[in-house]
């Protein structure tokens, strides 16, 4: 859903590093090198960022869509 | 922390210690075994989740098990005092 605050295995704080990681990987940097430069050295913490998919962005779309429909419906009934 | 005596003879003592774990028992056991007046020293945690450790001490008879335990604690306090001094010194530099 959203990036976990800490590494599941060792408890290192990783939540604050996700956005930088995602941005830099998107610009074409090598993921491993980004992790190294962020100071994430254990593989338990590395997999947290590497394997993460930010689904919350998709979920938010449903909410927005539902809101739009509600608006449209209320507009229709007003007529 | 609470200590319940399970068994007490002239040179044996078996106690159950509430609210501690391997941390304390293991260092105690090591120090008791280093004492030459102690015959047997050991501890057991009957169930890892649901029970307290049971410490067993048997001395060779010239000191009581309580004395042996107190001696071990004193030795450990000495070690930790020494350690904290060394640590503070190392952290300053």
């Amino acid at each position, binding site marked *: 859903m959203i990036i976990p605050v800490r590494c599941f295995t060792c408890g290192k704080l990783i939540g604050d590093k996700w956005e930088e990681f995602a941005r830099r990987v998107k610009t074409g940097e090598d993921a491993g090198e980004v992790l190294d430069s962020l100071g994430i050295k254990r593989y338990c913490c590395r997999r947290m960022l590497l394997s993460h998919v930010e689904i919350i962005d998709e979920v938010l779309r449903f909410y927005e869509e539902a809101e739009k429909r509600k608006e449209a419906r209320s507009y229709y009934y007003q007529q | 922390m609470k200590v319940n005596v399970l068994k007490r003879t002239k040179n044996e003592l078996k106690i159950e210690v509430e609210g501690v774990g391997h941390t304390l028992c293991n260092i105690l056991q090591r120090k008791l075994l280093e004492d030459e007046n102690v015959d047997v020293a050991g501890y057991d945690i009957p169930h890892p989740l649901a029970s307290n450790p049971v410490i067993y001490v048997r001395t060779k008879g010239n000191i009581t098990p309580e004395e042996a335990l*107190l001696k071990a604690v004193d030795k450990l306090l000495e070690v930790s005092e020494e350690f904290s001094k060394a640590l503070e010194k190392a952290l300053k530099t």
Partner: protein
Amino acid sequence: MEKDGNTMRLLIKGVDTPFINALRRNVLAEVPCMAIDEVVIIENSSVLHDEIIAHRLGLIPLKTDLDSYNLPEECSCKSEFGCNLCRVTLTLDKEAKDGTITVYSGELISENPNIVPVSDAIPIVKLAKGQKLRLEAYARLGRGKDHAKWQPVSTCTYKYLPRINIDAESCDACGKCVEICPRKVLAKKGDKIEVRDLLACSLCQDCADVCPKEPPAIKIGWEENAFIFGLESTGALPPERIMIEAVKILKKQLKEFASQIEVQKA
């Protein structure tokens, strides 16, 4: 020995394994630190459930001030809800007015400016337009044995100090051990093999296995009663303080045990 931000490595000599293990266990389970424990959700229309948000808040490491706060069970107030000496209130009030926003840990407003999240950039939740999040969170001191969020460290380890013996007579500096070593501990210097980085050695013995000589010209052993103690703080407490606290707690436990034995004796 060496320190880098939140991580620290110590070279400890002259103590035995049970003692160093007791220290490690105390660091993990007994050294208190701050974390959010109870959350009152006033309004939450985000896509995450109240419980998930509360859990995420709990995991945020908070900078801890051990000297001015008490553990709730030891606090003089004896109150279920805590007092100023054992509880810190943090509040959060966010609404996505136009467009999606991310709520960060830095937006938590603490009543004590010293007790704040270690990092301001931890995402708590994302809000779509029109969603609201209002809550009040209560942080308190706790111990790692009750919940991992109260652990002041992420890792705390110790290992033996390695000792590498190279038999100069039988070693012909073939370099096989240099190649196989995963940690690059060894280096070839002229016609001799030398130890380059002793502390990196993981005692894997690969070098001894690969040595063509019989018996191997290289021998990996370890020093008795010397340890490399590694500790990585979450940022809640400085690593030095964690070590000092761990020894202090150990002493307290020992004294308490001794007094209990005295009672039994009497």
